[in-house]
C-alpha cells in the first residue's frame, strides 16, 4: 500500500483559491481576536492557530457535510470551514446570545450536529473517545462518512487518546486522528512530555498507519488527509497523521511565551503556511494581484461584519443561566 503521503489528488484553480481564502480568513479571524483580547472586548481564552492554519484547511477541505470533526481548542477555523458563519463564531467568542452556546461557554465548547461539528469540553483528549463513538455509528449505519479527531502532541499523552485509538483500531472505525504537533504543550516542550520524536509512531502500537508530515504545507496536509479519508471511507479503519507545526503566538493570548527563543520563532515564521501556499499559486500562475486583493478584501469585510454582528448581538438572557440542564 502506497503511503498516504503520496496519495493522488487533483484540485482545480478555483478550489486552490478557495483554500487560500480559508487560510486567510482563519488567520484574519485569529488576528482580530488577538486585538479584541488586548482591547478587553473579548474575555474568552483565545488559543490562536496563527502559523498552524494549513492543518485545518488541508484536512477539512472537501469534507462532506455529514463527515464529522472533533476539533481541539486551537481549531476555530474548522468551525468556519464546516459551515458556521464568522459572525456566529465571533458571537460565541463574545459569549453573546447568538453564539453557539448562547453564552454558556465561549471558544469551541459547543458544536453543531447538523454540520458535523463536535464541541469538546476543555479536557484535552476527551474528544477522541467521542470521535470513536461517532465513527462507530457510521459503521453501524454502513455510511461512508469519516470523523476527523484533532489533538495536540501534549494531549497525546492523556489516557483518553490511548483508549480511543485502540478502540478505533479494534473496530476499524473511520477516524482520522490528526495530531497538531506544535512542539509545545503550553510551556512544556515535547522532549519533556514524550521520549519519541514523532507522535506518528504511536499508530503502530495500535495496529494502524501513522505518518508524519509538514503541517505547514496545506497541500501536504490535504494529500495525507485525503489518503487517510479514502481509507476510512472504504472500511480500512483509522490513520494517524502527525502535522509538524508551530504556533506563533503564546499558548493563549495571555501567555508571553518566554519559554522559547526568538530564533525558533523566526525559523518557523519563515515557514509561514500562507507564504508557502501563495508562492505555490504564483508558481502555477494562478494568483493575480487582483485576485489576491479580492480575497483580502473579502476576508476583511467578513471579519468586520462578524465583529459587528457579535458586538450588536444581545447578551444572553439571565433567565437562561441555569436552563437546558436536562432535555
Amino acid at each position, binding site marked *: 500500500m502506497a503511503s498516504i503521503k503520496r496519495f493522488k489528488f487533483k484540485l482545480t484553480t478555483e478550489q486552490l483559491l478557495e483554500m487560500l481564502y480559508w487560510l486567510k480568513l482563519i488567520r484574519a479571524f485569529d488576528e482580530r481576536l488577538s486585538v479584541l483580547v488586548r482591547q478587553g472586548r473579548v474575555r474568552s481564552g483565545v488559543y490562536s492557530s496563527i502559523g498552524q492554519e494549513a492543518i485545518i484547511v488541508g484536512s477539512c477541505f472537501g469534507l462532506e457535510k455529514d463527515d464529522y470533526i472533533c476539533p481541539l481548542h486551537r481549531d476555530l477555523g474548522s468551525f468556519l470551514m464546516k459551515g458556521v458563519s464568522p459572525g456566529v463564531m465571533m458571537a460565541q467568542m463574545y459569549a453573546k446570545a447568538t453564539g453557539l452556546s448562547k453564552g454558556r461557554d465561549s471558544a469551541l465548547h459547543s458544536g453543531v450536529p447538523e454540520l458535523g461539528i463536535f*464541541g469538546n*469540553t476543555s479536557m484535552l483528549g476527551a474528544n477522541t473517545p467521542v470521535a470513536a463513538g461517532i465513527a462507530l*455509528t457510521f459503521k453501524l449505519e454502513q455510511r461512508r462518512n469519516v470523523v476527523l479527531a484533532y489533538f495536540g502532541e501534549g494531549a497525546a499523552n492523556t489516557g483518553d487518546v490511548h483508549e480511543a485509538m485502540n478502540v478505533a483500531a479494534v473496530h476499524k472505525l473511520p477516524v482520522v486522528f490528526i495530531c497538531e504537533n506544535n512542539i509545545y504543550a503550553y510551556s512544556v516542550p515535547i522532549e519533556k512530555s514524550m521520549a519519541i520524536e514523532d507522535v506518528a509512531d504511536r499508530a503502530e502500537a495500535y495496529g494502524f498507519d501513522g505518518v508524519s508530515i509538514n503541517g505547514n504545507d496545506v497541500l501536504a496536509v490535504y494529500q495525507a488527509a485525503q489518503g487517510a479519508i479514502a481509507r476510512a471511507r472504504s472500511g480500512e479503519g483509522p490513520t494517524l497523521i502527525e502535522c509538524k507545526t508551530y504556533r506563533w503566538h503564546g499558548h493563549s493570548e495571555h501567555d508571553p511565551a518566554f519559554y522559547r527563543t526568538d530564533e525558533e520563532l523566526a525559523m518557523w515564521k519563515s515557514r509561514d503556511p500562507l507564504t508557502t501556499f501563495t508562492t505555490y499559486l504564483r508558481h502555477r500562475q494562478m494568483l493575480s494581484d487582483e485576485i489576491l486583493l479580492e480575497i483580502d478584501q473579502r476576508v476583511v469585510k467578513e471579519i468586520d461584519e462578524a465583529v459587528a454582528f457579535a458586538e450588536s448581538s444581545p447578551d444572553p438572557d439571565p433567565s437562561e443561566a441555569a436552563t437546558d440542564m436536562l432535555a
Partner: protein
Amino acid sequence: MAREIAYLDAIREALREEMRRDPQVFVLGEDVGAYGGAFGITKGLQEEFGEYRCLDMPISESCIIGVSVGASLRGFRPVAEMQFGDFITCGFDQIVNQAATLRYRYGGRVACPIVVRAPVGGNVAGGLYHSQNPESWFVHRPGLKVVAPSTAWDAKGLLKAAIRDNNPVIYLEHKYLYRRAKGPVPEGDEIVPIGQAAVRREGSDITLVTYGAMVMASLDAAERLSKEGVEVEVIDLRTLSPWDKGAVLASLEKTSRLVVVHEDVKTLGLGAEISATVMEERFEHLDAPVMRVTYPDSHCPFSAVLERENLPNADKIADALRTLAAY
C-alpha cells in the same frame, strides 16, 4: 397470575425489548458480548442483535462512556455497562464533564440520551472495589439523572424509561437484588417514569425514605415497628436525581417524622440533601429531627464480620424508628 422474574432477568428483558423496539438502542461494555456480561445480564443479546449492537469493548471505561456520548450525538441510544459500578470512577470525566454538560454547552440544541448501567452495592462479598455506592457523585452533578430500582418491576420499567429518556441516566442496579428481588414486571410499552417515588407501605406515624437494597430491610423494620404499634410509611425513591420531593413532603405532612435510610456513606449521602430540603421546606411540620441510617463514613470491607458491622440492616433501622417514635 402475573409472570414473576428476577431483578437481573428484568434488566435483560428491558434491554431486549428496547433493542427490538428501537434499532438505535445498542449495548456496549466489557464481556457483554458472547459471554453475556459478568452477571449474565446481556446473555443472548449478541446472538439476537449481532456483534455491533452488543459490543465487547476493551478495558477502557473512559472510552466506553465517550463512545456512548459520540453515538448519542448521532441519534443512537447507547447503554453502556460498567462491569462493576466501582469502575465508573475510571470514566468519571466523560460522565460529569462530557455527557452532563453537553446539552447546556450546545445552547440546548442537543440531547445526550445515554444510559450507564452500574452494578452497585455490598452484601455480596465484594470488598472495597466491588461494593461501592457511587450515587452521590452523580446526584450532585447537574445535567444527569440517577435511578436505583429496588424491585424487578422497577428494574425493568426504569431501564426502559432511562433508555427512552433524552438525558444521560446513571442506572444503578444493586447486585444484592439480582436474584433476591423477584416479581412481576411491566409488559409492552409500560415504563416506570423517572422522578416518581413509590409508597411501598403506608403508615401514619413515621415516613421512611429509602431506595435500592435498603427497601427490603426497611420494610422488614417497618413490620417490626407495626407490631409495636408504630405505623411506618416506606417510600422507595426509585429515582435519586431528580428525587421525588413531592412524594416525600406529602408523606411527611401526614407523619411529621422522617428517617432516611441508605447504604451509601453518611456524609453527603442522599440523606443529607433530603434532610436539608425538609428542613427548608417543612420545618414547621417536623415533630422530630430527620434521622439518617446509613453506612458509616468508611470504605466497604470484605470480611463478612466487618461488612455486617457497617451495613445498615433491619435492626439498626428499627432502632432508629423507635428513637424517632419516642421523640
